[in-house]
Each structure stands twice: as structure tokens, then as C-alpha cells.
């Protein structure tokens, strides 16, 4: 059970950071700001 939780946590961290990076860098490549709403 503990092992499963470790796996889940690691997967979540990898996936969330991957998708955040994809969002950020692909918007950046178009000269746009992904974090627009948070900047206000």
C-alpha cells in the first residue's frame, strides 16, 4: 500500500510539472503569457 502511494505521488509530481511546463513554454514560444490571470 505504501509503495502504491509513493508511485502515485511520484507520478502526480511528474505529470503536473510536465503539463505546467508544456503550457508555459508553448505559450512563451508564441510570445504569450500563460500566467496572465495570475499576474493581475
Amino acid at each position: 500500500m505504501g509503495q502504491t502511494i509513493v508511485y502515485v505521488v511520484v507520478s502526480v509530481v511528474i505529470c503536473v510539472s510536465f503539463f505546467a511546463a508544456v503550457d508555459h513554454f508553448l505559450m512563451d514560444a508564441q510570445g504569450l503569457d500563460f500566467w496572465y490571470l495570475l499576474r493581475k
Partner: protein
Amino acid sequence: MGSVTRTKLMSIMALGAMIGLLLLPILVAIPALASDGGAPAAGVKKEGGDAKVEKGKDVYYKTEGIVSGPPAPKTTDSEKDYPRYNFESRVLLWFANQQHLYYGSFVLAVPIFCMVIEFMGVVTKDKAMAKRYDQLAYDFIKISLTAYSLTAILGGILIFTFLTLYPAFFQYLSGIFRPVMHIYALMFVAESGTLYIYYYGWDKMKEGFLKWIHLSMSVVLNVIGTILMFLANSWIGFMMSPAGVDEQGRYLGNIWHVIHTALWNPLNLHRILGNMAFGGGVVAAYAAYRFLSAKTDEERAHYDWMGYIAMALGVAFLIPLPFAGYWLMREVYAYRQQMGITLMGGLLAWLFIIQATMIGILFLSTNYYLWQALGRMRGAEKYQRYIKYLVFLLTCGYLVFITPHTIVMTPAELKAMGGQQHPVLGNYGVMSAKNGGINVIITTTVLSFVWYMRGNKVSTVSWSKFGNIFMGCFFFFAYLNIIMLAVYGYYIPANVRVGLSVPQVATTLSCLFFMFALNSVMMKGAKQMGPIEWGKISARSQYALIMLATAFTWMMGLMGYIRSSVRLFWHVNEIMRDNSPWAYTHTVGFAANMISANVLFFWISIMFVFWLGALGAKKAPVEAKAAVPGRAAAPAVGH
């Protein structure tokens, strides 16, 4: 052997001739281009002896060029400019054009299939499979030959229709594209030559070094075919988004500018992908038909397998297609906002709702087929109970995707709604939601595919538990990201929102690439619960394939109609006006009927083509040949 060496030599010479034929028109064209003032941009070519050199400004590139052609003709509704039968010329041209495009698309797609499948046949380690792949590729190219001559016939009919019914327009267009049209014609020589040698030399070039030459020929064949399509696309691109001419339509000497219009490359990409998807659909439908009419289990197994391969290749190219289409639309908007609004916000908006419906049908059919295909694998039962959740995801995505922005409603409903927009549905009707919807649909299709790939296998790698959890997380967060981006779009300015589609696409494509890759790594040396029982698939799945093919065909017709009618009353957008009596936009109902008629005619004629293909078959079936022991001892592939 002397004969082998001679065959080798002849094959290499043939390949060289093909490449030469491919390059020759381009080589010949270079001096022609040079003297036409081929130097781009502001290069001023000194025309010795010309006293008055008139300059013009390119409508798109905004560069200066020397006027080298007549202005666009100002046509009148007369027998001179628009000779006619007692029938709408436009409809005749539409029919000729559409059929030519269907067949052209098919004959461009099939060689790509053959190239991929033949290559798979060469690199597969399993000898029996390799033979099957090879035979499959051969069967495909056989079908393509009849279709190829039909394409040429239809092309001829198309040109005659243009010449006889739209002489003023065609004279203008061919005046500008003269060298392109010549190269186009010469490329057909190359294409035919390559195709015939590729087909007829198949058996002679079966093994070893010759096989690699044969494969190279398939590559050359595809390059030629693709160039042909690119050249034809330049004419359409010019009609929609002219460049290289000034405001009066006078050619300014730079052939590259008239070819490389704003919409040329989006059209190129979209059409390559569309060809493959369409070709895959047609072949899959053929396989489905043969499956349903099969008398023996072997036949059923063979056509089930063929249908699966065709569908897989077609769908592989279908998945990036919406993104190519989105790029095309973005370029249209960037070129002329008006054209963009006419397409999706104004007159032609309802056609896009129909398109959304068709896209949904495509993906739903694909998913349905894959779920049926899970049924022919032992061990795939574990996925069956989750299918209803996939149905739910697909349905939600689909419902959002087809919600129209302009809703058809009675005035009573309008009053009940309190306005033109519905507070809930109105949100589904805009692009931010629709991107989310379609990406959810595509991700779900990827998920179905992954399940199919691992259907009858149990992973035996040491880290399989982590792998499974990771895959589940990845898909979950992919969905979350897509939906989050869709919702986010409502809260930010339009110019930022438009960019959100790129991360959404990337999310979906990440699922596709990474999950497929991870899955294949995880399935290395996996324990098979049972073989794939080819042929033991429900009839419903074959109907799904036929549905897929019909939907593809209908969509091609629809989008072609949209592409054409967005020009409204222009032959060449803003350059040459359409002054024929048919310079109006058809009603949506008429267009739909016309598209359906085209689809029906195409399918009847392609059935004829398939029948012709079967007519010529006198050889014994592949299975009998493969069973002969002597064959298996033939020299191994590869040197």
C-alpha cells in the same frame, strides 16, 4: 548469377531514371524561372531595351515587381466569358473537381500506405508476417492503378470543363501559372513511369538489394505525388489568398510568390494528412465489405487484419488533422479577418457545425471499432467495464463540440430563453470550449488505442506497477489540463486565448507519443493471454469502418465546398470578380445534397474500381504460397 546482376543493374538504372525524371522538370524550369525575374523581393532585374518598365506592388508580400502580365479580366455575364449549357456551370465544375479530388487523394494516399507497409514487411523479423505485409502492399498498389487512370481521366474532364465553361478565368490563371502547369504535366510522366515500374517490377525486385531499390522507388513515387499535389494546391491558394500580383491582378514576375501564398503551406499539410486519413478509410471500407461477404474463416481473418491496418494508418493521420485544420483557419483569419468570420461566424457557420458533427462521428466510429476489436482478444475483458466511462467522456466532448453558437429556435423559444444567447449553451458555442471538447475526444481515442495495444497482454517488466500508475496519472492530468485550459480561455483576452490551443494540442499529442512509447516498452516480453483472433470480430465493427469511410468522404466534400465558397463572389479573392449569373452562395441544403451526390457517385465508381481489381486476379491466394516449404528457404532479406 548473371541474370541477377543484370536485373540489379536495370533496377538501379530505373531508379536513377525516376529520380532524373523527378528532377528534370525542375532543372528545365530554372532557366525559365530565371528569365521570368525569379529573383525574390526587391531585386530589380534590368530588362535591357525596355523603355517603359511599369512597376507594381505585390498585394500580399508588399514588394515591388515589374508588371509581366495582363490584369485580371473584368468578365461580363456573356457567352464569351461564361459559355454555358442550360445548367449551372458551377455545379458541373464542382462535380468534376470533387471527383478528381477524391480519386487524386486516394492515389496519393495508397502509395504512402504501400511505402509504410512494404517497409514493415522488410524489417519485420517474423517471416510469415513479412510475406503478408508485402502481399498486402502489393494488393493496395494494384487497386491504385485503376484508380490512377481514373484520376487522370477526371483531371482531363476537369480541365475541359474549365476551358469550355470558364475560359476567361482559366486563361488568366494559366497565364500566371504557365510554368507551374508545365511542370505539373511533366511530373505526371515521372509519376506514371515510377508507378508502373514499381508495380510491374514488384516480383522481380523481391529480395535483398533489389528490395531496397524497390522501397526507394516507393519513396520517390511518394515524393513525386506530393509535389504534384503541392503544385495543384498553389492554384487554390492563389485563388483564396492571392500573392505575387498587384491590385489589378497583374503578374509581377516572381513565380515563387504566386506559388507560396499565405494559405499554400497550411493547405499542403492539411491535404497530406487528409489524403492519408481518407485513403485509410476507403481501404478499410473495402476490407469491411470483403469481410462481410467472406465465405471462409481465412478470408475473414485476412480482411479483418487488412481493415485494422488501414484503419490504424488512417486514424494515425486523422489525429493531427484537426490541428492542421486549425492552423489553416488561423492563417485564413490572419490573411483576411473577413474571410475567417464568413467561414465560422457568418454565412458558412452552419457548415462548420455539420463538420463538427462529422468529426465526432469519425472519432466515435474509431473508438467503437477499437472496443469491438478488444473483443477478439482474450484478456481484454478487464477493460470492458470501463468502456462506459469512455463513452461518457466522448459524449460530453461531442455535445460541447457540436453546440452551435447561433441556435435555431422558434420565436417562442427565443422569448423563453430571454435572448439570442443561452447562458449555458452559449458558452459551449465558442472556440474555447470546442477546443477542449475535441481534445478530450482525441485523448479518449488515444486511450482506446492504448487499451487495444495492451489488450491481450500482461506486462512482465519489473516496474510494471509504477508504469501502470504513471500511465493512469498521465491520462488523468492530460484530461485535467485540457479542460482547465478550455475554462481558462474564458477569463483572458482573445489574443492570449487563441494561443491556448497549442498547449492543448501538445497535451493530446504528448498522450499519443509518450503513452504509446511507454506502453510498447512496458509490453516488451509481455505475457500473452491469448492470440489476436483475427476474423472473430462482430459485424458491427465492419459497419463502423464503413461509417468511417463514408464520414471521411462526406467531410472532404464539405470542406472542399467551404473552401470554394468562402471566396463568395470572387474567382480570385479581391482580384478577379465572379460576374457569372451564379455568383451567389448556395443554400446549405443544396450544398449538402450536392455533397451527398458526389459521395454517392464516388463510392459507386470506386466499387467498380475494386471489382476491376478483383477481376484481374488469377493468382492463387497468398496463404497457399507461404505454405510451400521451398519459399521459406529463399535468400534472407538484407545483405
